[in-house]
């Protein structure tokens, strides 16, 4: 069936902080310079803006100050200043308060929900004339005859599991645009295709990732300390595994609690979900949550590679922005400010080009603009911290981080390289087993009751959006050699080994998926490809 075509000046894929900042900046420039004819549309695969956003979050408002200086008067939902930083080394019994590293000091920052901030940014964008379409997933990159990107196509709806059109079938729509901005966040499915097609990462190290699992609790008034920020390292992870916990108090008796595990972990028996549950039982964490109730749950992969792993942003016809380009500052555990700034820089480069009506696919020089911005110098200073932990574990990493920051000021004359996460798994025969405690139903919970709180949903009568490149690999390689690690790293119980007539087989419960992208990253032979399901599905996070 023929697809309908819609023409736009700029199409942006993803209504997160990078995509919305780009959209806002584009329309601000258009209005300021009397070029109101600039059309900007944002496609968002979630059912509404913010539904697929998950972040800590302690937010540095630097970019927001630049983008919307009067955000406080416009009632942006950043109401709780960070007032009290704690950096704890946890041991199985006890803990030690360490001096807070400079990168984790949060004076002037705000504790809040990035999902709510994005909802608000979406309102600001719409007021400026941006068209945002939640519930429509960009599923395909469109190329012109010269090989430049000419837009994206949305997913078909109403396909049957075998891929043939069902009675409700509606073909996707082609959004043809002068520029296509991919703002899909970490490990975007279209971004991955474009990075490969144009070899944007040929001069970069492999990207390295983490998985963050988060819950929001409503706590008792007596323990609620708005603005308190706690970061932890150490227990329950061993010293070779990178990761740590966070706990933030914000408004309305809400506490965000979460745990991040570097996806370069080696032991296939490790379950990030179970580490997160165990983390909450430490007395230093438990005391904040006891007597409270858990409101929501979710998970999302994040980029940790820094400047070494950043691909080129620009490709013919468009660019990557935000975490799709890997711009998170892992030493500061922050990416909202860099994502927004990259979106703004992209907008400025695109607008100038559009206003001068130059060759549609000509380079805008956005990579240069990024390299000259504070984003790049900030990320450069932090570049050796994460790989130092990969080389020397927790103790060496902490020691190196202190030396790099205080002796060299982030200007050490060397750069450590990053490695690919999926190549780091041990064979299960070499790995030590890990025993996780049973959930208590008050502080710790079974996986499926957690997934329920993500509000995730997918129509089961559609093609599976988790594609296996080779259907035999899950059993012959993943199960035989690694003990089916996907059954443990998936924070939503999507992957299960079940006994079939011909022996064990992999069952994919795609309806549970929370769109975290971990399987696309960590599968040892890169056999799992995460694709977008039909639009409007996946988790429905509120206040995450």
């Amino acid at each position, binding site marked *: 069936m023929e697809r309908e075509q819609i023409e736009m000046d700029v199409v942006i894929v993803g209504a997160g902080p990078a995509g919305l900042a780009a959209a806002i900046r584009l329309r601000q420039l258009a209005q300021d310079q009397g070029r109101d004819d600039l059309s900007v549309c944002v496609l968002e695969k979630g*059912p509404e803006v913010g*539904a697929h956003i998950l972040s800590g979050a302690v937010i540095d408002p630097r970019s927001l100050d630049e983008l919307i200086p009067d955000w406080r008067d416009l009632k942006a939902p950043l109401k709780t200043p960070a007032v009290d930083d704690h950096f704890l080394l946890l041991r199985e019994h006890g803990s030690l308060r360490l001096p807070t590293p400079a990168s984790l000091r949060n004076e002037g920052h705000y504790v809040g929900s990035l999902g709510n901030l994005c909802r608000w940014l979406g309102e600001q964008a719409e007021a400026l004339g941006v*068209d945002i379409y939640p519930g*429509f997933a960009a599923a395909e990159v469109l190329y012109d005859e010269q090989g430049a990107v000419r837009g994206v196509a949305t997913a078909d709806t109403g396909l049957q599991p075998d891929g043939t059109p069902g009675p*409700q079938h*509606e073909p996707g729509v082609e959004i043809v645009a002068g520029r296509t901005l991919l703002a899909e966040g970490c490990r975007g499915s279209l971004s991955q295709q474009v990075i490969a097609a144009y070899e944007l990462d040929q001069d970069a190290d492999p990207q390295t990732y983490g998985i963050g699992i988060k819950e929001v609790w409503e706590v008792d008034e007596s323990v609620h300390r708005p603005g308190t920020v706690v970061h932890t390292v150490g227990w329950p992870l061993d010293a070779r595994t990178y990761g740590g916990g966070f706990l933030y108090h914000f408004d309305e008796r809400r506490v965000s609690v979460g745990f991040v595990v570097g996806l370069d972990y080696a032991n296939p028996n490790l379950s990030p979900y179970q580490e997160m549950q165990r983390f909450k039982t430490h007395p230093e964490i438990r005391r904040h949550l006891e007597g409270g109730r858990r409101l929501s749950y979710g998970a999302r992969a994040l980029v940790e590679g820094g400047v070494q792993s950043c691909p080129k942003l620009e490709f013919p016809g468009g660019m990557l922005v935000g975490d799709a380009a890997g711009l998170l500052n892992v030493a500061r555990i922050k990416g909202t400010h860099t994502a927004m700034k990259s979106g703004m820089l992209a907008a400025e480069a695109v607008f100038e080009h559009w206003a001068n009506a130059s060759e549609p696919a000509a380079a805008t020089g956005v990579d240069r603009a990024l390299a000259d911005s504070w984003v790049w110098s900030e990320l450069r200073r932090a570049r050796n911290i994460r790989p130092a932990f990969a080389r020397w574990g927790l103790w060496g990493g902490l020691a190196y981080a202190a030396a790099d920051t205080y002796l060299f000021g982030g200007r050490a004359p060397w750069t450590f390289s990053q490695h690919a996460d999926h190549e780091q798994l041990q064979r299960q025969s070499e790995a030590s087993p890990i025993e996780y405690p049973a959930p208590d139903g008050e502080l710790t919970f079974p996986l499926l009751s957690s997934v329920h*709180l993500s*509000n995730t949903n997918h129509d089961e009568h559609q093609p599976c959006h988790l594609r296996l490149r080779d259907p035999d690999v899950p059993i012959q390689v993943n199960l035989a050699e690694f003990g089916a690690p996907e059954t443990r790293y998936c924070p939503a119980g999507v992957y299960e080994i079940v006994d079939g007539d011909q022996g064990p087989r992999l069952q994919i419960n795609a309806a549970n998926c929370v769109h975290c992208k971990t399987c696309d990253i960590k599968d040892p032979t890169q056999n799992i490809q995460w694709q977008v399901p039909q639009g409007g599905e996946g988790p429905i996070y*509120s206040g995450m």
Partner: protein
Amino acid sequence: MKVLVGVKRVIDYNVNIRVKSDGSGVETENVRMSANPFDEIALEEAVRLKEAGICSELLAVTVGDEASQEVLRSALAMGADRAIRIDVTESPQPLNVAALLAAVAREEAVDLVLLGKQAIDDDANQAGQMTAALLGWPQGTFASELTIAEGRARVAREIDGGQQTVELDLPAVVTADLRLNEPRFVKLPAMMKAKKRPIEERTPEALGVDMRPRVERVKVSEPVPREAGVKVADVDELLDKLRNEAGVI
């Protein structure tokens, strides 16, 4: 023939409902909202009547605050010709809604009011019946099949123990059950056009409707959590527990 469809904005059916800790109501701030699924079925049925050439004008109506406009945008994208929002800020009770819908139905001289059988937020299942009563029109509730011919509506109703078919003289009120149809997906180009279309506004005062609540809500609480089950060793133990612990036999 002119058809009025009522659409209510409710908490999305995929979202876990959370009762506010003070028991005053259900948490709706920053919670995903969408059109009541039964109303979408009613709307789909009306769009099909339009496509069949039976309905000449399709009017979508909602009762709610400004945020409720989004369900009307979707209704326009699905095929409604006009959209009316009756501006109400407090969550209205079924009798108020029925009075508002009846007033618009009279004002617009519609031939058929098509509603969802109930809204999934309060599950009251009253607005359709009350609208019919206030208008003095016949009603066909829980419709799983609707045929319009020669000024009459033939409605197959889902009832206990089977199906009942009724014939109504138009104008009439029909409420949709789950099996009436499967609503279509909204298309992006239609959504883009719907964003630019006007949404008419009415107020309860202008419609002459008294919005005072007739029912007082005392308290909202969560269902008692289900207690964990136990495994019994044999039939005797089961009988013993049923008799002595549960007291049901």
